[in-house]
């Protein structure tokens, strides 16, 4: 009960203190707001790069051309062998006969339709195929080689060379984006801690008096921590609005993709809500840590 009363008083004191020290509180809030907007932008960017990379990776397909003399029993054996390769996503494996491949191509293009129109079962030069997806794109080269070694497999194609380059580039972009988010969060922590330190520095006399009249460290620190938490919370309002409305507007204006339909943006819902929640949590935790660290410095009287 006693601890509960102390906590209630701390919340009350923490809130009142924001208004009592209005100018310094405003400085802390503005500092949080500006840095959190940067964090928000970096988070949105990195999440979209990540999403775009994953999408392209998901679309990567290995096409396996079978020997034209392969019997249906042999096709079944090849299918089993392919599905047994650890990196192959067996649920995504599609088998197409040469007749199905021909029909698909004819449907896609009028020229193909004309050229292939006269081909019958005997004269059709196309081959039966397996289209499959891999679980780990970085292992695609090894998986393709493994499939190539299966008996009655004629050719394996997956965009060799280009895929490796793209995967490498995406990994770098991802790393840079994550690094930027991390660096910005660290800068935010540093800036907020220092601004709150300034706020508390101006109140070190207050803290020393608290100590001298018998307040425990817990009683002294708690209102500052709660104050820091609220400063962070208030500071996150504008960044959250930027994410909620800014991202939705960007998405609507660009019709969901940047430059080309390949670069698709993440759909605003629920992405903007998750990002906003993360921003609020970051702001509150940083505010709390900043206050606790700054107050601790003056608790030695």
């Amino acid at each position, binding site marked *: 009960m006693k601890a509960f*009363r102390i906590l209630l008083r701390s919340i009350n004191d923490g809130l009142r203190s924001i208004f009592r020290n209005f100018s310094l509180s405003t400085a802390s809030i503005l500092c949080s707001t500006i840095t959190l907007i940067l964090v928000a932008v970096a988070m949105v960017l990195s999440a979209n790069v990540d999403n775009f990379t994953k999408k392209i990776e998901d679309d990567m397909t290995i096409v396996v051309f079978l020997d034209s003399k392969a019997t249906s029993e042999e096709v079944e054996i090849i299918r089993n062998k392919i599905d047994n390769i650890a990196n192959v996503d067996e649920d995504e494996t599609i088998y197409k006969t040469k007749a199905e491949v021909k029909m698909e191509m004819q449907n896609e293009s009028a020229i193909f339709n004309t050229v292939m129109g006269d081909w019958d079962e005997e004269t059709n030069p196309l081959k039966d195929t397996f289209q499959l997806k891999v679980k780990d794109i970085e292992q695609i080269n090894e998986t393709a080689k493994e499939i190539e070694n299966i008996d009655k497999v004629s050719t394996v194609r997956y965009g060799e060379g280009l895929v490796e380059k793209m995967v490498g580039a995406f990994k770098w972009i991802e790393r840079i984006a994550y690094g930027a988010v991390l660096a910005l969060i660290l800068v935010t922590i540093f800036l907020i801690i220092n601004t709150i330190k300034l706020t508390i520095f101006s109140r070190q006399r207050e803290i020393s*008096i*608290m100590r*001298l*009249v*018998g307040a425990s460290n817990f*009683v002294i620190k708690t209102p500052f921590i709660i104050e820091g938490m609220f400063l962070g919370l208030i500071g996150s309002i504008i960044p959250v609005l930027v994410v909620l409305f800014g991202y939705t507007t960007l998405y609507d204006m660009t019709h969901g993709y940047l430059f080309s339909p390949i670069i698709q943006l993440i759909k605003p819902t629920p992405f903007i809500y998750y990002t906003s929640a993360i921003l609020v949590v970051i702001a509150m935790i940083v505010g709390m840590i900043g206050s606790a660290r700054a107050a601790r410095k003056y*608790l030695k009287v």
Partner: protein
Amino acid sequence: MKFIKIEDCYKVYKNGVTATAGLNLEIAKGEFVFIIGATGCGKSTLIKMLYREEKPTKGKVIVGGIDVAKLRNSKVYKLRRKLGIVFQDFKLLPKLTVYDNVAFPLNSMGAKKSEVKARVVKALELVGLKEKIRSYPNELSAGMQQRVCIARAMVNGPKLLICDEPTGNLDPETSKEIMNVLDGINKELGTTIVMVTHDKDIVNRMKKRVVLLENGVLVSDELKGKYKAHESI
């Protein structure tokens, strides 16, 4: 049973200055003791050790059964809740009302609202300032601010009141009023009072125990003592 026991106490600051050098002193419950001496004789360090703002370098300082040298920084509040401190510069929180300033130690301990109110009113009555309960410190005279400081020190019902030159910033008439308040607290509530002062008139008029320090050493300790003619303090 002595309430304060100081045994062979040395305090040497990091810069090499020796504030107390083998000091021995005992103060019983209910005593009113003046600590006097020239500037730099160690009297401020002595009382700072009583409320553990400073730790002795060597020796023992025991207050109400607590050995201050062994008290960890995070546990200092346990000692300070047992005593009241009156400062020369009052150390009031300017943004809090008289009520909130006096209530502050009780709120820090998580006391009930009704209990806080009753005890704050009682403490302000003790120092004759009940009518200023809603005022802010800057709306009060220096004498009144010092009385608020005494009320804050007494609100907890401490057994020991430590006064660090409480009349240092006050005119003689106001000083007299403050001393009357402290004397009343000592006589009526039996609170032990240890007071550092430079004020000869107060010491001579009050006729209490007087401890004289010189270069960190106790040189005289007299019941109903006075400033002597050769003491140019």
